[in-house]
């Protein structure tokens, strides 16, 4: 652990690495990520957190932390499907101004390890939740504010169901997987044969199969199909038009293990097998939740109303951000940051569950249990990146 490169993933293709169709390279991904993060004004650390064998043999989660000296409740960010932690760059500075901020690449995405997840939807979901929990234990956080976007929102909710005592406040940004799949027998009858044929052919494939199939043209494909994303980073990242597609492409051209797991979670065309709507009552009723939707988003924002009705207005806040699409944090970063910070300050004010003393054990003991791990501040190869000198000699740090 602790090396800047995730060496395991570089092993073994059947051509022995001589030929790579997808042009995937860890070095490239690292450099591109560094380039994107160079726009941050707050000093940050990046490191692998070894979470042991949760899904694979030894899984590592790539983490960035900002302002981790601050005593306030930390904020943990979970990205969406096919994204990576660097895409939070319009928001990290604003969040880190008041509190510690951690953003991770979910297991199976970005620069984290890519183990093979279970083929059962509930098991895959539990594996993801466990990986986040293990990560929390390694990083030694007692309680945090959990923010998830899209798929990250789904995992965050699942995490909050399982470990409610760890979550001070749950922030969901355009979360995926809440609504039930509607019975669409009627709709099927209307569509012509060829549409149904194409849909059936595509169904078993992973969502981003085209990016990998395109091979050398993958980056071009990303930049052509989603020019809007790179355009929105233009104000933040220098030459976003090339850097962002490269980053997204590099994140998704590796073994698609997170993607497969996501594919296991869903049924039909993008619906969740076990939608969160069914499990809303398993959420701690006292846990405060903030849901942020983009007004243009395709994620059905009526689910916000359902959550609101289900849980009552006392500790649920639903906010629709006008003019924003699915990537709320990116489309209207200022408004989004404002709403998240408001949620954070609500979380700071009081924990409604304090009175009930729900915490089973002090966090220090909880953290001491996982055997021989060194404390987090030393166990990770820490890359100090002051804004003036972003290219800190990270590799030179000896792996522990």
């Amino acid at each position, binding site marked *: 652990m602790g090396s800047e490169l995730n060496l395991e993933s570089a092993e073994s293709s059947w051509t022995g690495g001589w030929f790579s169709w997808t042009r995937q390279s860890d070095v490239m991904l690292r450099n591109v990520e560094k380039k994107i993060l160079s726009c941050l004004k707050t000093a940050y650390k990046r490191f692998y957190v070894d979470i042991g064998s949760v899904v694979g043999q030894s899984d590592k989660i790539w983490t960035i932390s900002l302002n981790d000296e601050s005593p306030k409740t930390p904020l943990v960010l979970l990205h969406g499907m096919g994204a990576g932690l660097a895409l939070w760059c319009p928001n990290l500075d604003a969040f880190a101004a008041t509190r510690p901020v951690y953003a991770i690449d979910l297991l199976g995405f970005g620069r984290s390890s890519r183990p093979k997840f279970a083929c059962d939807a509930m098991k895959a979901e539990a594996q993801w939740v466990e990986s986040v929990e293990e990560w929390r234990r390694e990083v030694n956080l007692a309680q945090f504010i959990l923010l998830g976007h899209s*798929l990250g929102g789904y995992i965050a909710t699942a995490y909050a169901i399982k470990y409610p005592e760890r979550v001070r406040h749950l922030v969901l940004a355009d979360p995926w997987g809440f*609504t039930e*799949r509607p019975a669409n027998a009627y709709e099927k009858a209307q*569509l012509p044969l060829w*549409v149904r044929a194409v849909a059936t052919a595509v169904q078993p494939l992973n969502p981003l199969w085209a990016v990998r199939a395109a091979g050398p043209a993958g980056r071009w494909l990303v930049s052509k*199909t989603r020019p809007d994303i790179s355009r929105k980073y233009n104000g933040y990242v220098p030459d976003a038009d090339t850097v962002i597609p490269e980053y997204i492409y590099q994140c998704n051209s590796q073994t698609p293990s997170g993607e497969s797991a996501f594919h296991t979670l869903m049924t039909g065309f993008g619906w969740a097998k076990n939608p969160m709507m069914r499990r809303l009552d398993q959420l701690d009723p006292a846990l405060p939740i903030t849901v942020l939707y983009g007004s*243009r988003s*395709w994620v*059905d924002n009526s689910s916000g109303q359902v959550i609101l009705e289900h849980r009552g207005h006392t500790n649920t806040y639903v906010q629709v951000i006008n003019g924003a699409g699915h990537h709320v944090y990116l489309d209207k970063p200022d408004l989004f940051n404002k709403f998240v910070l408001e949620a954070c300050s609500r979380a700071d004010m009081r924990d409604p569950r304090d009175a009930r003393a729900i915490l089973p054990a002090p966090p220090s003991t909880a953290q001491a249990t996982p055997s021989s791990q060194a404390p987090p501040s030393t166990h990770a190869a820490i890359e100090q990146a002051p804004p003036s000198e972003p290219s800190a000699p990270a590799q030179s740090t000896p792996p522990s």
Partner: protein
Amino acid sequence: MNLSFAGCGFLGIYHVGVAVCFKKYAPHLLLGKISGASFGALSACCLLCDLPIGEITTDVLRVVSEARAGSLGPFSPSFNIQNVLLEGMQKYLPHDVHKIVSGKLHISLTRVYDGKNVIVSEFPTREDLLQALLASCFVPVFSGLLPPRFHGIRYMDGGFSDNLPVLDENTITVSPFCGESDICPRDLSSQLFHVNLANTSIELSKQNMNRFARILFPPKPEVLSNMCKQGFDDALRFLHRNNMISCTRCLAVQSTFQLQDVLDDTTYEYDPDCEECKTHRQDALVDDLPDTVMTIFQNAIDSANNGIVNWVMRQRAMRYLTLLTLPYRVPIDIMYATFTNCVADRVETHAVQYKVAANILVRKKRCIRHNNYMTRFVTCTPKMSKSLWKLSLNTLQQLHGFMYATHDRSEAAARIYYKLTMGDGKMDANDGRQLDRRRASEFRITYGDMRTTHDDVDTFEHILNVTSHNEALLAYYYLDGENKMKMTEIYDVTDADTDAVQSPMERDVNKQLEFDNDWSGELIADDDDFDMEAMDDDALADRNIFSDPESEWNARRSMSHSDSDGDQPESDRRGPYIELA
């Protein structure tokens, strides 16, 4: 608040539904700029001109039925989309449409030679506007081989570079594809992925795949009707969610306040106490497409389904038969189309020759009119029947003009005199250019020059002059049926021929004004209801029974030249009042 319509070919019927809803519930949103590409630009133009939705729907359905009729659907050689569109535009767009939409309508075009996006918003003449709209609807191969020119440069469909031109932050985007637009269908799918093609976000879903095929292959009238309804519902939902529906009175109050402060947040506060607003909003919730539009759709559906022929065609065996005979029908279709094109071309050349001859004989002001005809564009292949019709119409006009000329020698003399005073051989140049009707741009220059040289008594600046120097006898303001503020001032101009109007100094001032290019577009565009008809005298109206509105306008102008030649202001004879409405 601006609007933006996505280009979408035959899916454009969705925009019609949206337009109906906006007209009914949020007319204040139509006051800003409207942008669009392809069919979106057409709908934007229709909205800005406030054309009756029923007629537009009929026209769209007509185009669709023509497109579905050919052997290869819209790809049949006998179906020429550019022609069909042009016909529709010539028919429905008002003659001063370029003044209405200049500065408001933003058309997205793709420059052919470098593929860059160009947004056009100024249209000096009506032809310019039509040309830009046609260029914006030009899909290579589908519409023709050579893209049309606009101001000398070839352009094609704006959908290739920017399908949903967004002018600023507060733009409401309308797109018939489910995706991340403000007004778009919300499919019953929670698909996680969407692509962004030419600035239009399109979700990767089955329904959108189906819609994509409909861009060039129009569906049945039933499907179109559903699409239109969907547009109406989606727009209504958007308005409702953003609290944009309120009663007309509250709307008026809002718009007065919006003039002053900048709109940065798009949420509208509506007055919860206003009962009228409440009922209005509740009505809107259960509302559906208006009956006028629905009946049109119903008629189209009926005509496509009823009748013995349609019944026979619907049978399965018949469908297979049509499919099997396709290889035989296509060559016949191609031959037929080639033949008609050839013949029509021949007829048209003859028509031109005939017109030239007639003009030499009669030597009338009609020269101007014919120059202005400009119906053929580079890419359009004409249809025989239409050319024949025009030819016969022209014959009639010529006869009429000839008859009239024999009647009225004195007037002709005055006109010739006027030509001489105008000098510079401009008229001759015009005559010569008669043959060269395709070089429209050059012609336009001459046309413009003529216009400024004449010190026309009927022009806008004259009226402006009168109104600024004289006190109005009577002025009143009122709200008309569509809640537009109208102002009417009545002036006494019986003594308008005195120095107040005609002093040399003021003429100079006027001339300076005229050569300033900026003024005319803006000032005239503001004054939508500048009523030419009211100032017309009967003799003129009588004489132009065959002409289309625009040429009538020309004729009237040339008429007034001859009048002013006698140094007698027309205002004197026309009656003592100018009405500015």
